[in-house]
């Protein structure tokens, strides 16, 4: 039996002549934090809208493995009636989804999202960041087991993003989460699984570590004491070296023809060049570089 909480099969969504989603097969495992990344117009919001039940697919099927009231959705730019207070918005969400949850949870949700001090204020005067926090409070108040978050940090300043990501990390331990983001460092920080969407197609789906490992470049960062120029020249003369360049801070970046060759040859080549080596390590792949490579 599948342990996936979200499963789509051949999901296709067409708006007129525009194909928003084309044969998307998303699998979100129970308890995972799934990051959906993609450039603007990739289909992320459309996909989340279909999973939330707000949009109907043109073709394909969606399977959500939890009860509908256990699914909570947060739009990328939450908007509320300006004459409601923050407390009323979150309480409305509680009453609609989980009336059995005690009203005291409303205060807790506002507290967790940093809005306890403005609980009694009408939301008409809230900034975009505060509205995003309020959207998150209204999402978590019902204690959902599946969270669908569309760009939850999009409008937040760095401190706000840190708070929300910490919260997302905590929530991720309690249930399953799928969140879209164009801030790749956020995805890399909190997600264990990633899906890369471009032009309505899912280019990659799987463990984040696997994505990074698969796309790791055969490059090494070497930190040396001066002089660096003769070492760079000697490395460039090596047949297995594709590129050697000097970076700031006494570092050299060496790109080999393959990871194996680099690992086998680099130490010897540095010794032959008389390099005063302080440290060397493989260049870590980051999601941003992988993403740009995949979507360009």
């Amino acid at each position, binding site marked *: 039996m599948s342990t996936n909480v979200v499963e789509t099969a051949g999901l296709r969504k067409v708006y007129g002549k525009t194909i928003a989603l084309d044969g998307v097969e998303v699998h979100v495992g129970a308890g995972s934090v799934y990051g959906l990344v993609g450039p603007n117009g990739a289909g992320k919001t459309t996909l989340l809208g279909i999973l939330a039940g*707000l949009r109907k697919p043109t073709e394909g099927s969606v399977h959500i493995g939890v009860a509908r009231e256990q699914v909570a959705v947060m739009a990328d730019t939450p908007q509320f009636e300006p004459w409601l207070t923050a407390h009323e918005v979150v309480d409305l969400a509680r009453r609609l989804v989980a009336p059995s949850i005690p009203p005291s949870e409303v205060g807790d949700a506002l507290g967790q999202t940093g809005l306890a001090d403005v609980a009694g204020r009408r939301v008409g005067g809230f900034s975009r960041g505060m509205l995003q926090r309020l959207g998150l409070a209204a999402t978590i108040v019902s204690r959902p087991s599946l969270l669908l978050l569309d760009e939850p940090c999009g409008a937040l300043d760095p401190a706000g993003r840190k708070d929300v990501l910490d919260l997302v990390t905590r929530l991720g331990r309690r249930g399953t989460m799928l969140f879209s983001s164009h801030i790749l460092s956020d995805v890399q920080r909190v997600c264990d699984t990633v899906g890369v969407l471009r032009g309505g197609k899912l280019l990659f789906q799987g463990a984040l570590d696997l994505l990074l490992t698969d796309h790791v470049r055969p490059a090494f960062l070497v930190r040396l004491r001066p002089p660096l120029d003769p070492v760079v020249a000697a490395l460039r003369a090596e047949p297995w070296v594709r590129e050697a360049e000097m970076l700031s801070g006494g570092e050299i970046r060496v790109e080999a023809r393959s990871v194996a060759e680099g690992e086998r040859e680099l130490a010897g080549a540095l010794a032959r060049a008389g390099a005063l080596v302080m440290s060397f390590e493989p260049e870590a792949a980051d999601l941003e570089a992988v993403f740009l490579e995949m979507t360009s």
Partner: protein
Amino acid sequence: MTLWRMEWARLFRTRRWIGLLAGYLFFGLLGPVITRYQKEIFKSLGGGIKVIVPTPIPADGIDSYVKNASQIGLLVAVVIAAGALALDSKPEWSAFLRTRARGVSQLLWPRFAANAVAASTAFLAGALAAWYETSLLIGGVPAFAMIAGILCGAVYLAFALGVVALVTGLTRSAIGAIGLSLVALLFLPLLGVLPALEPWVPSKLVGALGELVRGAPASDYVRAIAVSVALTAAALSGASQLASRREP
């Protein structure tokens, strides 16, 4: 906070109720006064033209209120209701509610009911003001006719807001809903031109208050009331289905 309380909050916190009540009360207070003193008003205008004005009777005072209330009052009620009933005019808020409510009906009903009650209450307040002033300035008005007439007016208002709800199932914008609803409410009375349909059309209820005070039998309006109630229920059901099919 519940969806019902939210609708009352919408009416009171945005002060929409003031516009609604003021519209009906204004004509309820002014109509009988103008009717009672129209001879003096025409005389004060001068110009040497002799205007013969019949001595007003109580029904004229009530009629004056009904004519104004059925136009300006209805317009205000439609505008206010469209603002609430246009579920998808704010897509993000609509998504918030749609992903949490059991269905569109759960969202639509409180909006319709709160606005229908508010509009009917405002109509009642205006009618009571007109009743009081007419009794004071012109003469007594039969209580049963007034009560039956107010009921007819309230049923028509509910029907009108049902039309607004149905139209919001066809268009997302509140302004579009106002325009289309007013067109529909202006053209529906044309059906009453056909003698066979005249006793059945909801618009027969618009002038019922004045006609009942003039002595028309209440039984004349039973068919229009029944049709209005049935059409209101059908309009709400249609609105719910149309909005359910639409992606916010």
